[in-house]
């Protein structure tokens, strides 16, 4: 069994392991969103579990009795599996921490609360360039810390928090090293695997993950690339590739391309930015989580900065084409796609916008496959000219 498969197995069996932990008195904390620091949960002695499932059409539809259909299928999925009675984790969670940075998340939280799930909302002001907003987020983190302490009965000391920050930093470091192997030509690993690795990195004990990810890095470094070097190098941009929503990344690579970089706001480790372990640790979390990372699309202002970041990725990772992965009714990303598309025209980089409602029926797969294959083919032709 190779390391990726081992990590996949660990992730797959995580619910069972957490159930055992719960039996021993460990609190289980589900969380949704990139602004909920896993470090705080671990430091409280609880076990974190990222809710980031998607890729199937039924769970978003299961939310319809509570929510209108004009919400992104990703947001709806986070409660949809539970409403269908097929989510192994949500019923056993002691708390679900949901970030509230946009209306999709905020209404998801409403549905969760209405359905009597234990909830902690984490307000994230999108007007992030104000000190007022930064202070608000900091207070929200302190409030979450207090809730976790009350729930677990453990004080989150600086020492514990420092330890958990160091652990998560090590996971990020390992992923970052793996990520950088994709700058090579040919890349040592494709985006389909790298995105899944990111997901798996949320579903395991940190000490195990650190060892496994570093082992994988060694293997990749020593091994032969599975790619030929002729594959168009693709940058994948969008809101999120949820755990299980792998059709598009896989299709891109099955069609002869290779994803060598991503700008995805959710579901990824954001491994380029580590949290400092000296000084005021909560302030450090605020700095990294709120201020340093590339702002998500909902932040304002954000789009100019994000376009600049995309242009940097295009240059640094030798990108041949950009695929924009749009989720239906994700209105902010829908607008941003036009800004990015125009910027890509300016730098002569092919751009393809795909939209998904997590409907991957045979009827839907045909046109999707054709579009991706044509895009990859056209880049190849452009390269050969």
């Amino acid at each position, binding site marked *: 069994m190779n390391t990726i498969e081992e990590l996949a197995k660990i992730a797959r069996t995580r619910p069972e392991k957490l159930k055992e932990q719960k039996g021993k008195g460990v609190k289980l904390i589900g969380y949704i969103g990139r602004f909920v620091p896993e470090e705080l949960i671990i430091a409280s002695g609880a076990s974190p579990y990222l809710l980031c499932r998607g890729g199937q059409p039924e769970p978003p539809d299961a939310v319809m009795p509570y929510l209108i259909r004009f919400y992104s299928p990703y947001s709806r999925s986070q409660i949809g599996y539970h409403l269908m009675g097929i989510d192994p984790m949500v019923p056993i969670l002691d708390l679900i921490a949901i970030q509230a940075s946009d*209306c999709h998340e905020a209404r998801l939280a*409403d*549905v969760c609360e209405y359905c009597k799930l234990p909830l902690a909302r984490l307000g994230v002001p999108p007007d992030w360039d104000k000190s007022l907003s930064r202070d608000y987020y900091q207070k929200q983190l302190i409030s979450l810390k207090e809730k976790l302490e009350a729930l677990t009965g453990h004080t989150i000391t600086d020492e514990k928090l420092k330890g958990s920050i160091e652990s998560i930093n090590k996971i990020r470091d390992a992923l970052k090293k793996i990520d950088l192997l994709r700058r090579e030509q040919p890349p040592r690993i494709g985006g389909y695997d790298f995105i899944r690795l990111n997901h798996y990195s949320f579903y395991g004990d940190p000490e195990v993950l650190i060892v496994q990810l570093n082992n994988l890095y060694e293997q990749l470094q020593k091994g032969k690339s599975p790619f030929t070097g002729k594959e168009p190098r693709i940058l994948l941009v969008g809101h999120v590739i949820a755990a299980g929503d792998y059709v598009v990344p896989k299709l891109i690579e099955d069609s002869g391309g290779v994803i060598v970089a991503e700008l995805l706001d959710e579901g990824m480790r954001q491994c380029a930015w580590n949290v400092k372990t000296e000084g005021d640790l909560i302030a450090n979390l605020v700095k990294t989580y709120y201020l340093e990372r590339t702002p998500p699309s909902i932040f304002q202002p954000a789009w100019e900065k994000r376009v600049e970041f995309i242009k940097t990725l295009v240059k640094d990772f030798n990108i041949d084409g950009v695929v924009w992965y749009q989720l239906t009714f994700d209105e902010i990303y829908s607008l941003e796609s*036009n800004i990015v598309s125009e910027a890509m025209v300016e730098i002569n980089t092919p751009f393809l916008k795909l939209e998904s409602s997590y409907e991957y029926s045979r009827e839907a797969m045909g046109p999707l496959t054709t579009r991706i294959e044509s895009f990859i083919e056209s880049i190849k032709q452009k390269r050969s000219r």
Partner: protein
Amino acid sequence: MAKDIYEDFLRLAGFEESEMSEYLPLWRKASAKVGLTEGDIKYATEERIPTYFDLRLKGVRLSIGSYIKELIDLTRGDEYREKGAKIVYGILPAHLHYYYALKLTAPDKVFVSFPDACIGGGLNLLFHKLNPYLENAERGGASYGCRHCALNKTRYAARNLGVIPSPDISWIWGLICDEGPKMDEYIQLKCDPNWKTYVTRIPHDQPLGAVEDEDVSRVEYLASQMRDGFEFVQKEIGIKVTDDKVQEVVNIWQRYAGKLFELYGLLACDPQPASAIDTNLFGTLLFMPYNTGIESMEKALDILIEELKQRVANKEGILPGAPKLMMWGIPANNPWVVKIFEENGVRLPFSLGFVLTKKQVTPPTFKDPYMAAAETWFRMGPNCNIGYEAEQIREKIETYGADAMVFGFFDFDRWLGGSHRLLARMVEEKCGLPTFYIEGDSWEDRDYSEEALRTRIESICEIIKMRKS
């Protein structure tokens, strides 16, 4: 002499003969600028307005006239700028007191408008002519299938088509939806680098049922946001507003709100003395500032209240004894919705979501104008968590009575519209009232046309009548 449809329109809208020489040329010019043809004016004058409005009521005609004066004014932004005025825009929903306070402080030095609400709120209601704006925005990237908000699309298109100039500052509020403020970022990057903005936001992170106006830290945060925003705007345009002026606006707003309260009380009577469509334009001034001032609409409101009092006294009105349906937000731009309900023997007095509770018309507890403004903001159900809003709806239903309630027509709004299915459940649980949800769009009717919704509305009416009988 040939019939002048523009003149006829103004006459229908309650303009005095003495005003014609001033307003007729302005109306011709303004209507052309917003994209209205002579045919559109004729349609509004001879068909649409007489079909949906009770033009026997002078207050109703004057409310249309007041709106038209504001629409004319909106098209003159460039002229105001040439005369040295600074242009300040906002969006729905915002705390409009600050815009009025600017206007009260320096009436000739500032031009205030919520341009999309002004255009979007009247062009479809009176002329059924918003589509060119929506289509322009869709061509500009606000894709049709994503259910972007018609107001945001209208703001983009109004700028893109040159109907409105760049603002000196657009104080953009994201206290409810995300798309409103982000559309300003879009406009700035896509079609107008001079579109300067200041953003005010607060996260939706309150638990269901939290009484947000009584949470001092939350009120303080919003007050700080408002203070920062207003100070930024004042600095940007060089106008200093005193707290007294803000307080003056608070008093004006409370006075106007009190009159609306009285109007809604009359509309709740049986028989209902006027249709909800007749009174729609009055409510808009609670949420958007008129650069031309509140006075003309307030005068129309005073007249209408007297007219309706007379009708109530005479027991005149529509659908006596009919079931009373409360709708969260009456889709005023689609007046046929109310008509279909009425044709099917069910009456709708007003938008329950925008009617005020006793607490909402009580003066704020804080003296600091920003704290008072923030407190006022959080007293409004739609601005808060839906648990609190459901409780407010319960109080309103107790006050005004209802046989059923309908939610919907806000499917474009991921905050307001997104709450409706849950709200319907909560209200049904709290009040034991049958509730219904209709998917639709209150601003436009391309997706949800009269033909598409008639069966749904008719079936709701049948259920309500059966229950009532």
